[in-house]
């Protein structure tokens, strides 16, 4: 007789990870990469901002209208909420850092004695920072696939700056987006919306 160990931590982690099967994080990161490439080609940072907000909107709407109706609604416990807050803080600090570096670059300002330049070492250091940020998100979100997306992001960033071409962003973005879309389609097929009354039998 087959027996399965009832491990509460494993149970919670499995339930949490089931919400990431939808591929929406992959779609979001793919769209971010594509927006970076497109805005470089067009030469407008405003387009980048608009596309990034659009990507966030796609993910939020997807979670609300596709994932939750299929997987159900849940409020995870205090420990999971604490991890999510750490991710939110990390993302907030990342955005702040990005804005600060952008401001320094366009105004030629020195930031703590350092001026942003196009040098290889700076590029590699920034790529490493990107990887560390994605690694932190992957760890706290219990979402290992995020590390792969971080690798794609860091590689696209580094090669784009070193080769002075936005094409790497477009290639990486298309690959991650395609993967995310495939996961999304697979998720929708695997988890149809419960039938009438299926959301509430009580």
């Amino acid at each position, binding site marked *: 007789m087959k027996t399965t160990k009832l491990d509460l931590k494993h149970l919670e982690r499995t339930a949490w990870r*089931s919400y990431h099967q939808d591929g929406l994080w992959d779609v979001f990161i793919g769209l971010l990469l594509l927006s970076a490439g497109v805005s470089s080609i067009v030469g407008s940072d405003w387009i980048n901002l608009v596309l990034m907000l659009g990507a966030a909107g796609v993910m939020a709407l997807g979670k609300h209208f596709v994932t939750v109706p299929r*997987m*159900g609604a849940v*409020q995870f416990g205090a420990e999971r909420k604490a991890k999510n807050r750490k991710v939110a803080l990390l993302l907030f600090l990342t955005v702040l850092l990005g804005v600060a570096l952008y401001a320094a670059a366009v105004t030629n300002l020195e930031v703590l004695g350092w001026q942003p330049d196009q040098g290889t070492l700076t590029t590699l250091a920034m790529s490493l920072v990107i990887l560390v940020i994605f690694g932190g998100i992957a760890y706290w979100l219990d979402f290992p696939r995020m590390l792969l997306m971080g690798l794609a992001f860091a590689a696209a960033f580094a090669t784009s700056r070193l080769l002075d071409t936005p094409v790497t962003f477009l290639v990486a973005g298309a690959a991650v987006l395609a993967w995310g879309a495939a996961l999304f389609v697979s998720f929708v097929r695997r988890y149809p919306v419960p039938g009438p009354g299926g959301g*509430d*039998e*009580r």
Partner: protein
Amino acid sequence: MNADDPRANGLKPTVAFDRLIHEPARLTLMAYLYVVEQADFVFLMRQTGMTQGNLSSHLSKLEDAGYVAVEKSFKGKKPHTMLRLTEEGREALRRYRQSMSQMLDGLPE
């Protein structure tokens, strides 16, 4: 069966178990509700793999025992039910775990 019968003595530890929780499907439900604050019917159905009817039946038993609390609301026109373990339910699961632990710890290697 008298008290000296070894079979009777062997049965004694098991009668202390909460039979409501001891049923595998209900134990799984209690476990999922233990690790979250609250969840709806669809979540439990997806995570446990139970059918709607089966899930509803087990939840009713747990609700009647006071282990699960049910909050009904509406999302637009659709009824929506959130479920959570009561303090009594959490305590019952902890007691069940302790009973199992104590019994199994006494087993020979």
